[in-house]
């Protein structure tokens, strides 16, 4: 049994309305030392697989097929055996 931790972020030049608003409100709360906030998704996917390679391949497939929107998002992931 493996666990994939998938980090999905907006592509670099894609607008992040949410991040901007959070940055502004942090500023309003007195955090004037936060030049940028980017907000993405964090997914934890349990996966039963024979071995690490199989798991890794499947996770990549899932991301490309369903979990990530390649038009505006990038992703990375880590795989741990559990």
């Amino acid at each position, binding site marked *: 049994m493996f666990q994939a931790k998938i980090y999905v972020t*907006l*592509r670099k*030049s*894609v*607008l*992040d*309305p949410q991040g*901007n*608003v959070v940055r*502004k409100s942090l500023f309003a709360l007195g955090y004037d030392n936060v030049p940028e906030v980017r907000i993405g998704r964090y997914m934890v996917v349990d996966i039963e697989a024979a071995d690490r390679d199989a798991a890794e391949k499947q996770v990549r497939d899932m991301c490309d097929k369903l979990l990530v*929107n390649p*038009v*505006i998002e990038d992703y990375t992931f880590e795989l741990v055996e559990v």
Partner: protein
Amino acid sequence: MTIEAKVWREMGLTDSEYQRIVEILGRQPNYVEIGIFAVMWSEHCSYKTSKPALKTLPTEGPAILQGPGENAGIVDIGDGQAVVFKIESHNHPSAIEPYQGAATGVGGILRDIFTMGARPIAVLDSLRFGELNDPRVRYLFDGVVAGISGYGNCIGVPTVGGEVYFSDSYEDNCLVNVMCVGLIEQKDIKKGVASGVGNPVMVVGAKTGRDGIHGATFASEELSEAAAERRPAVQVGDPFMEKLLLEACLEVIKTDYVVGIQDMGAAGLTSSSCEMASRAGTGLEMDLALVPRREEGMTPYELMLSESQERMLLVVKKGSEDKVKEIFAKWDLDCVVVGQVTEDGILRLKEGEAVVAEIPAKALTDEAPLYQRPTEVPAYLAEVQNYPLEQLNLPEDYNEILLKLLASPNIASKEYVYRQYDHMVGLNTVVLPGSDAAVLRVKGTKKGIAMTTDCNGRFCYLDPKTGAAIAVAEAARNLVCSGAKPLAVTNCLNFGNPEKPEVMWTFWRCIEGMGEACRVLETPVTGGNVSLYNETKGNAVFPTPTIGMVGLVEDLDKVCTQGFKEEGDTIFLIGETLPELGGSEYLKMHFGLEKGQAPKLDLDLEKRVQQFVLSEIKSGLIKSAHDCSEGGLAVALAECCITGGLGADITMVRRFRGDALLFGESQSRIVISTPPDKGVELVKKLVDVGVPYTQLGQVAGSDLNINVVNPGCSGCGGNLVNLPVAKLEETWRGAIECLMK
């Protein structure tokens, strides 16, 4: 820049267009200038292909305060008030990224409305996709609906109506047309003009990023792999920013500081600046170094062509800059002076002291080449029109067919869609989605505004001219059924590649049909939007001239809905049923055929039917009204039963095929109900005005019964439909949701 590189070609300009530019400027344009010309002369911005046809549409009428040419059309609704409305397509962006594509589509059309000073009161969405059995289609459908819901709900403008069609012809090119309706005091109307030499020009709203550079040119070519290659960074909508922009703009427009205002839509800063200057016959000078930006190292080219959303361009009275800034600051918005109005008619762009572009504003807006593209009758027409429908077998079981039709996604309840939209915010929605047209009240008056979008693309495919006329007629009919007088039209013309003579031919025919119908029904065209190149690998979408129409309900006590109201009421069919099966949903669903002749449309009859129904709704004789559209009379009756929660006993004389009688889609037909003791009076009036009608039966029980009698043929008659309304409803309501599971 090396001219040999022929950069203009990558930007979508032809060599002859480039030569034209050289003549206009009297010199070689630089890179920035080529980019500016390329987007302003793109199909999307210049209408270089469609203008000649559009010129033939009727655009004037007693109620029209603003026709085509501004950001939106305006119609008078009395009491010094007016309705501002417009429809726009976001087909290509939605095909690439359904959620953001649709969301930014909503954002764009909202800006077109509040740019004029109007408060948006409603959105409608007209959507077309491939068949739902395709997972990619389901993904697009869900994404688009979520995008419209995400943006519209957040900004707090109710989405009160629209349509959804599913057909293979839209599989590779979904259509996402969004209409917005706004309300305004006529004295507050603002235009997109940059007048008053020396007046400052201000950029307001979101910072500029590298979003959607060349989006306009992108929307002017086929969705090919190659195009996908040059795909710009997808624009992400920020409805929260837009909400602030909306409130701030309406507040600042109420002051007398604002001379002109325009949103930055396609071609962003470029189109807004040169259009405002061109309309006023002035010039603009802007220092691009002053434009607030989101990313580092942005070039003048990128700043001018960026399509970052939620931005506006303002021209204000000299000296009022600080007052204006104050108002925007209150809403936490950036508002920066970037230049001023000049008298020389030139769009002059600087970066600091350096001039980076100098172009006559009018050259960009008015001097784009017009193309009289060749036309040719499509080869397919003869084949589909002459298909021998009369040879098709009659159905065994009409109950089964009716249920199948009610479950067909094109006919089934669209609740799955509109329950995802906040259609109530604003407290104006008097007739909610689910009837023929939505009706919104005008607070503080007895008036209501009715609105709808309609177009049966299949009819337009089988007969472009009649199909487009039918779209206008059906839209008007839907308004009339709600008790509203149709006022005016906005249209969204979705077609394939206009460089193909056959596509161009259907385009011209559609405009002809639309124009004719608008003249007869006295609903002038106040503007719209053209979306061409909806074509992939040679497959073009059905010609789809979507009609958005608004109407006026003079007295909200007289608003009418489609559901039957009371046991015992008498049911009539106003209009005439002809033996027509061509292009019907029944043919497609039961025989898999999208063939035959489109239904005939007699505009004079249409008008008389509508006038009759409208005046008798006002007189109180008519208690419910529902037009026959997809699925024909049987489906219309079923919908009246479902929404009314009542059954009906119907008996008709069969003069031709039973399937044509029940499921054919003859035009100009409206199912109405009237109190039992008023039937005679109604008939007398019908005879007086010479409108054909059929007495169908009465509202009764909890089943829908349809019997036919057949003079001169015993045994051919009998009961064709007998179904509990509960069963009809369950089938109709749940269908789309089931397909999405």
